[in-house]
């Protein structure tokens, strides 16, 4: 789960990581009140979206007076901000109003999991303001990494060493690194990122931006964090799928995919592409797919206007294919299905399952394997 910048900064502030003074506003009126409270200009208006690259897309503006503030806030709220990272855009429903900072130098700092070691790492670089991918690509040596022992946690010497190497004011920066580790650990974060971490002209070290991702699997022990989720940042179908406990990711193609198992669901997208088509989505209905889940999956797929054909790819293991076929037939009575369905059913009792589908009178085309299914789906999508 992603947090907004203002939410992450509130957590940072609680832990003693210096952040610019500011508050979140949902309306122009609130923004003006906050500006009054802060009592000085210039201020910075930052669109709160779950996407990087805001600055270049007009999502960050410096304002010198109340008129400019009003104009900047009005230009952002209610709009969809499209950035190079999110070409489809994210809705702006809130903005962060902050005191401006006199930046001298920009750095990058983050704590995340190093999966190859199964240990967290503190990463930092003097190339702040850039995406980590870019830093690594441009110059892999520009990033300094300290591996954290899970039991000991980040040691003060490691934090100091990092600050010395980067030429940061050591005492302040080391303290920030140590606090970042506490934020990471206490909140079951999968990422704590400060980009940029700045040294101001006054010599202070400040987290100018803040990014936190929380491990979804750990939300059960952080009810306070779970409440912070802004579902509007998800595409509508993904929001709906979440309600039904379905794993769904919207993609740009027109072949709707319905699959059991995450690995097979990815594979189905790949084989559609291999057959010359474009998948409309990733969708895993799970191992124990019942009628209700299949009906919900159809609802999600039919809610995507781009879907021209549905490709069902099910490998029935312990869950028998004939039961799944009955589920599909039942579900198709509950949801109006406006496109043809290509169904590849394999595994336990597959023959019986295919027979049931053929006899159902539904617009379902049974196929014998994945490849035939993908080719058929692509053909139908092109005809539509």
């Amino acid at each position, binding site marked *: 789960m992603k947090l907004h910048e203002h939410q992450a900064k509130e957590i940072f502030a609680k832990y003693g990581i210096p952040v610019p003074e500011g508050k979140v506003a949902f309306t122009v009126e609130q923004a003006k009140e906050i500006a009054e409270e802060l009592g000085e200009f210039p201020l910075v208006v930052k669109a709160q979206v779950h996407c990087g690259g805001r600055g270049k897309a007009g999502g960050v503006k410096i304002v010198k007076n109340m008129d400019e503030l009003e104009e900047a806030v009005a230009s952002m709220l209610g709009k969809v901000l499209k950035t190079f990272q999110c070409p489809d855009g994210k809705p702006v429903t809130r903005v962060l109003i902050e005191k401006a900072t006199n930046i001298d130098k920009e750095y990058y700092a983050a704590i995340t999991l190093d999966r190859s070691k199964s240990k967290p790492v503190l990463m930092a670089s003097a190339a702040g303001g850039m995406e980590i991918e870019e830093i690594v690509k441009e110059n892999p040596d520009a990033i300094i990494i300290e591996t954290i022992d899970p039991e000991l946690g980040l040691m003060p010497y490691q934090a100091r060493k990092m600050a010395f190497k980067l030429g940061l004011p050591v005492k302040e920066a080391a303290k920030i690194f140590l606090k970042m580790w506490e934020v990471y650990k206490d909140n079951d974060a999968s990422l704590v990122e400060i980009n940029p971490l700045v040294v101001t002209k006054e010599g202070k070290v400040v987290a100018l931006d803040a990014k936190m991702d929380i491990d979804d699997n750990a939300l059960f022990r952080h009810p306070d964090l779970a409440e912070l989720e802004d579902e509007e940042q998800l595409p509508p179908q993904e929001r709906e799928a979440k309600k039904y406990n379905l794993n769904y990711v919207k993609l740009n193609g027109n072949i709707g995919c319905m699959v*059991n198992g995450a690995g*097979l669901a990815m594979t189905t997208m790949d084989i559609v592409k291999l057959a010359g088509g474009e998948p409309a989505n990733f969708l895993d209905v799970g191992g124990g797919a019942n009628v209700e889940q299949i009906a919900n999956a159809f609802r999600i797929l039919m809610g995507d206007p781009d879907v021209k054909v549905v490709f069902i790819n099910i490998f029935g293991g312990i869950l028998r294919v004939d039961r799944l076929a009955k589920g599909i037939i039942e579900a198709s009575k509950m949801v109006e299905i406006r496109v043809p369905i290509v169904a590849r059913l394999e595994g336990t009792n597959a023959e019986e399952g295919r027979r049931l589908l053929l006899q159902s009178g539904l617009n379902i085309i049974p196929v014998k394997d994945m490849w035939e299914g993908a080719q058929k789906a692509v053909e139908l999508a092109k005809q539509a």
Partner: protein
Amino acid sequence: MAIIVDKNTKVVVQGITGKEGSFHAKQCLDYGTQIVAGVTPGKGGQTWTDDEGKYKVPVYNTVEEAVKEAGANTSLIFVPPPFAADAIVEAADAGIKTIVCITEGIPVKDMMYVKDYLRKEHPDVILVGPNCPGVITPGQAKVGIMPGHIFKPGNIGIVSRSGTLTYEAAFQLTQEGLGQSTAVGIGGDPVPGLTHKDVIKMFQEDPDTEAILLIGEIGGTMEEEAAEYIKEHVTKPVFAYIAGITAPPGKRMGHAGAIITGGKGDAASKMKALSEAGVLVIENPAFIGKTVREALENPEAYWD
């Protein structure tokens, strides 16, 4: 021989009285796996039986008792995510050497601590999973949730991060007349027990395994690390399929571990690393079985 589980495997099911645990304990028993004990704290002294009353298994309060009194040497874990880390550590501390954790949804931090603890205190313990289908040595033992009948005894070793994709691959191999030595589902989490590399090392050393099929997916660098190992140490033919060539960066594809982040973990780089290590990378997932059979029959046509 085979690896990890065989006919001498004696299983304790942690969480045997739960819905999942109970259902799959029966499936494993039907396959012929020796399940010698169950553990559910507070239900010690009871006897677990399946819905048909065919099998009877003693239930203990602790894994320690299951080891001492029933001789369990392998644990199969079904307990819910908030308690799964505790269950793994309990099994290891009780002297269990092979732990298979099926549970999906364990917090990453919990697994990070568990893995660190096992590394330090029980380096000889094998942990498979979590969030995995388990391990099967066809004809000998099934310690997991996979459908047993699609597997067949033979000489291909399978290691995979995905459940249904393992079934798909095993089914295709079986259809082509190729049996499996052991199939290991290592799971789709960011902090796994065994990795691709660990299992490939075991298959290389296993006399019953003649060829290896690796099924990977986007996220992490496990496949790249396996490729490095294969290049240096593996003499048996290795095949690979990587899922997620069309997956967009930053989006979690079902599995917590299947996500391209920080410019790392895309399918193309994994396929490249494996190819360069001499692995035959199969692009079309519908032809996994066929390609393995043809390449084993006629290696010159597939490898230079």
